[in-house]
């Protein structure tokens, strides 16, 4: 009897611990809203989201984060355009084409590079890429959308490549063999059989890569240039949301409107990445690869 009781007790305790993740998500929401909501006594939600002027330290201040949202979306879109082809193609290379020794080295190396601290990429963009862009294209500053997108892409590629490679690897061998047996070439097999079968995993990789890019702070803080205006060209500076929060939080007086506005920006960022992750989760469950058994 005591043994049974102990088992039940342990089970209950473990259950409580497992709920900690949910609890933390709840706490994140609670505290973001607790510190962020007061700004909406000063501006309406619509003005805050769509207002095109972000002058938090002016008198009177303007709290419109539309330029920051646009900045985030532009650098994320461009980095995705660069990172997805490179990431997926290099995953195809590792999984399908590379000779065995290369494969065995490349896989852990990519995983290793996914762990590269983002401040390092930001630094590289600032010290190497920015002066080069400035000289080559004769720009007023090398800290701009192009630079930020390239550095974000470099950061997202290992993530995309690593998850996409897992998805490609998981495609059953029979699929490949059946395709070869029908006389398809290797590239036809890859493009028409393997990649489509792994599509849900590849989509998950892309969405997670984008989520990582939109939430990334240090790269955009250091190389996006920091201009809170709607950009007119790719060589303009922008101020994505994470950069704005990180750069200004230190100077915003405690519990001032500015402070609350930065937390509210954090809410927007949190909800955006949450949406990305829920979509990724949905895609990976809804369109899960069918195994060879269901063929």
């Amino acid at each position, binding site marked *: 009897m005591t043994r049974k009781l102990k088992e039940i007790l342990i089970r209950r305790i473990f259950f409580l611990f497992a709920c900690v993740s949910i609890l933390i998500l709840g706490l994140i929401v609670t505290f973001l809203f607790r510190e962020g909501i007061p700004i909406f006594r000063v501006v309406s939600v619509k003005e805050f989201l769509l207002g095109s002027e972000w002058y938090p330290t002016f008198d009177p201040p303007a709290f419109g984060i539309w330029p920051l949202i646009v900045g985030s979306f532009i650098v994320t879109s461009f980095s995705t355009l660069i990172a997805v082809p490179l990431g997926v193609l290099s995953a195809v290379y590792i999984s399908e084409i590379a000779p065995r020794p290369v494969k065995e080295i490349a896989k852990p190396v990519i995983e290793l590079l996914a762990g590269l601290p983002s401040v390092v990429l930001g630094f590289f963009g600032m010290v190497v890429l920015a002066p080069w862009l400035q000289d080559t294209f004769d720009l007023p500053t090398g800290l701009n959308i192009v630079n930020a997108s390239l550095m974000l892409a470099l950061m997202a590629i290992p993530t995309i490549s690593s998850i996409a490679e897992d998805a490609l690897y998981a495609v059953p061998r029979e699929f490949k063999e059946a395709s070869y047996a029908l006389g398809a070439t290797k590239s036809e097999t890859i493009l028409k059989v393997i990649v489509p079968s792994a599509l849900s995993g590849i989509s998950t990789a892309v969405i997670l890569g984008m989520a990582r890019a939109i939430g990334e702070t240090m790269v955009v803080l250091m190389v996006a240039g920091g201009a809170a205006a709607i950009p007119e060209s790719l060589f303009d500076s922008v101020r994505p949301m994470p950069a704005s929060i990180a750069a200004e939080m230190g100077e915003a007086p405690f519990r001032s409107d500015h402070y609350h506005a930065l937390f509210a920006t954090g809410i927007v960022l949190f909800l955006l*990445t949450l949406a990305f992750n829920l979509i990724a989760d949905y895609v990976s469950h809804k369109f899960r690869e069918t195994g060879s058994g269901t063929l």
Partner: protein
Amino acid sequence: MALQTSMRWRYFKEGVFFGLVRLSAFLLTAALGGLLLYIFVNGLGVLSWDFLTLPPTDSMTKGGIMPAILGTLYLTTGAILVALPLGIVSAVYLTEYAKQGPLVRVIRVGVNCLAGVPSIVFGLFGLGLFVVFLQFGSCILSGALTLGILILPTIIGASEEALKAVPQTFREASLALGVSKWQTIVRIVLPNALPGILTGSILGIGRAAGETAPVMFTAAAFYTAKLPSSIFDEVMALPFHIYVLATAGTHIEATRPIQFGTILVLVGLVLGVDLIAIVIRSTMRKRKRW
């Protein structure tokens, strides 16, 4: 004839496609390899015993980075102490106890969502909860708790993988001998899953050591004259040190060598730690008895 040209066309397409694939793999290797090489070449000349063991002097333009190394060590250790127990117990519940159903699904989605929360949002959360609400102030404790929560999903994920990899027959054999479920977990499942869990935790350490945004508002100081004496003191941290030297202050060019040296130390630390994890995992896979 028609067949021949069509075959030739197909092989031509094959060549183009393979060329593209090889090119992208090469570009990627060149970009990331070049970046690492650049850091290594520029940083190596700065490294010395003094650089690693002395505090900064002359308003940060000379001296070493010892307080930042120590600070990163404190924060990372604290983070792992928070995340490891929570993560392992969560993973044990999810794999060993939970019946598949809506509740477990909700917990899983929650873990995934937590993994995707941007690091700056963790920073805001840490500021709102630990620094402001619980009044810890900006200190090691706040920073370590924030980082611990940040790496929790990594640890849960890795531990789950490791637990799932333990063959079901091991559990059945133990239960068949009349051993209780709890004892089976402690004596049979966990020891066999340990290498995997270890790998995950080490990867978590690497992640925590490299993060800048979460510690900006919760723990990191631009400069502290003395080393921290309790968990309620502010600390310097390697990533924050790099950011501050590279962007703020009046000596950006003068401190460039120090920046390169700090970057090399940080990259060496993070990649070194990750490498250990990967080596452990691959040797364990080879030695697996089942």
